[in-house]
């Protein structure tokens, strides 16, 4: 009986010791892991700080204005380009005349009337395009593309944008950046385009935007810091 007890206690001690040993090392492992992650986090945070500063430096309104002047020529949104009420937004015009033989019951009549009575409301999509904010009517043909400055832009991108070219140069006022800034900083703040855009136009515009965006100058912030270092 005593012997059994002794064996039991011995085993218990051994097990307890071993468990403590195991747990201690497991905890140490986890702590190491935690510290490693913390270090990484801090390193990443530092990196993010630098990148944020660099991003801010590269998206200075002044620089964006200059880039806009050179490549995009977007104009600020004029008051006449903004729709004032929901009724000003035209319905899908071409489909409309054919569709309602019996009259859609879910469209309130005054709503339809509001659309028609508003002189500002564009009746056809072609006209609707005219009220599209100039922010989206990119006119690549008008952009002076210096050969050396912008190798990425295809030589003749004009055919990809069907409609807006007609309107572009007259409306687009060089040197205005607001639309671009609005797009980049807080998209919600800039009034969203109210008029519908034909399906083909928008993707083409996007491509243009993507291509026209110049490659970020590496080390632009470096230049700033270097400048500071030199002057202090």
């Amino acid at each position, binding site marked *: 009986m005593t012997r059994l007890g002794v064996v039991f206690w011995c085993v218990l001690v051994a097990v307890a010791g071993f468990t403590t040993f195991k747990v201690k090392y497991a905890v140490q492992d986890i702590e190491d892991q935690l510290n490693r992650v913390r270090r990484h986090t801090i390193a990443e945070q530092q990196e993010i700080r630098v990148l944020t500063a660099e991003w801010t430096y590269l998206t200075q309104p002044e620089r964006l204005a200059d880039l806009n002047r050179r490549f995009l020529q977007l104009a600020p949104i004029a*008051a006449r380009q903004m729709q004032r009420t929901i009724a000003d937004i035209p319905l899908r015009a071409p489909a409309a005349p054919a569709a309602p033989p019996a009259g859609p019951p879910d469209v309130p009549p005054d709503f339809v009337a509001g659309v028609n009575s508003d002189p500002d409301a564009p009746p056809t999509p072609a006209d609707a395009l005219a009220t599209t904010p100039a922010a989206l009517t990119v006119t690549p043909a008008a952009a002076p593309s210096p050969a050396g400055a912008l190798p990425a832009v295809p030589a003749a991108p004009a055919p990809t944008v069907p409609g807006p070219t007609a309107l572009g140069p007259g409306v687009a006022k060089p040197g205005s950046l607001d639309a671009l800034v609005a797009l980049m*900083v807080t998209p919600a703040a800039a009034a969203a385009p109210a008029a519908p855009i034909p399906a083909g136009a928008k993707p083409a515009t996007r491509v243009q935007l993507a291509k026209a965006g110049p490659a970020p100058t590496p080390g632009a912030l470096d230049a700033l810091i270097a400048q500071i270092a030199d002057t202090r």
Partner: protein
Amino acid sequence: MRSLQRVEENPCRPRHFRPPPPCTPVIADERASALLETCRTRLVATAALFAVVFVVVMLRLAEIVLLSGGSAESHVGRIRPVAPPLPMRADIVDRNGRLLATTLDSPSLYADPRQILDADEATRAITSVLTQLDPAELHAKLTSGKSFAWIKRRLTPRQQYAVNRLGIPGLQFEHEERRIYPFGDLAAHVVGFCGIDNVGLAGIERALDKQVKGAPGPIQLSLDARVQFILHEELTRVIADFSAKGAAGIIMDVRTGEIVAMTSLPDFDPNHPGRGDAKLSPAEAKDRVFNKITLGAYELGSVFKTFNTAMALDSGVATMTKQYDAAHDIKIGRFTISDYHGKHRALSVPEIYMYSSNIGSARMALEAGAERQRNFLDKLGLLKPVPIEFDEVAKPHYPRHWREVNVITIAYGHGISVTPLHAITAVSAVVNGGILRTPTLHKLPPGSVQPGERVMSEKTSDQMRKLMRLVVEFGTAKLAAAPGYVVGGKTGTAEKNVGGHYVEKKLLSDFVGAFPMQDPKYAFLLLVDEPHPNKQSHGYATAGWTVVPAASRIIQRIAPLLGVQPVDEASPAITRALAVESLQGKKIETY
């Protein structure tokens, strides 16, 4: 016994050796043998235990060394816990989170030349990365035999990475922090700048030095970098167009008192303040750091007629239909008060304001009296420094003894100097329904409103809005019209007082207003210092031709960004809201 004898007989035995007495023979006692047995068992058990432990250790060793190729994780080189290093100064961001000021690690590179093994190789490697360095000079430093030599201060993160990659022993980095203003001069006067020891010396950096140092997160200002840029750009254009000495502008949210943009030109680059062009004289450099909005006290001229008219209307002295004689000049002492564009007839209160009649305003003020005028201006906060976050705030200048002549001149904005910040704060109260709110540079949580102080009735505020709209429709500020945004305001052109005399050619033109007038959201003040006429302005340098067109351009650009919905200005709802009854049906002469 025999054995003992044998030992004693042994001649070689040690001298003192005495063999122990012979043991008593063990008697095979049952209890004793049981005890012995127990001991034996215990010894065996212990030995077995040790054997097992050693076997385990051996197996483990064999496993680590032989089987897993020595790759088992070491518990030796433990990673020490790290406390996240807080930057010495928190970031400053605008209301949309755009960075206005940040602190970056800016390491400096130094060498311990005694540890450099191969100076030639090191020189070649370092100059390949830091191309600006002079190889000969660097080589001299590396072979100097001293224990410390700066190689380059303030490396960029990229350069630091490149140097690290070279892996040259003996090169070390000293970590330093550097304040960076990525937007440069854009909000220079608001954000301010830091000295070399990272102590704020101007602007918010100075005023909120403690907060900036202790904040765990970024400090958010009420500024909007986009609006700030537009204001900055348009004012720069005004300076260029009219070859002016300087300009300043401020835009304020009239509902909360938040300052959305504030610019004073010429300005400076906070990344290296007080330096800029080497051509600048010290006086010019000082002028750049001077914030005209908060530090410059100016006689703002006719803009004060806004406060004068509000005072007369609110106190009940005047009504919208009351007429004052504006046909005859006022003579008081050696002064004669006359109108710039006299109509030479009796004018009603809206006409006095619209045509900016000095005579009419003076008569209104005289009727109200000195005490009322003084109390009203005091209530609007125009007689004490503006309680904004800044340290750099000027006191207004006004006569200690408020005599009759002062009453007259103050009615049209002379003989009292206030900062543009004073004026816009007061104008915000005039248009927002009569509540004076402390201007602030902190972004307020959306929807929250600071407690304000009622300084005039809502009715007076409503009437003043109509009058200000009238000025843009028919008066001196017609060029401020921004279609859809219902601008209203009041111009002012004052001759600058130099050494006690008003100088005719040195003007200060300003325009203060708000939009949209049917429900004002933002107030603005633009000011240009010593503009010179140009061809487009038909030889004028007055506010109506200088800052007023700029106001129109600014509003048309910022309104979409600020979420102000354009309205149809000709719609009945708007015209009804802003119609002046007494002028209805009359033909209004334009200014």
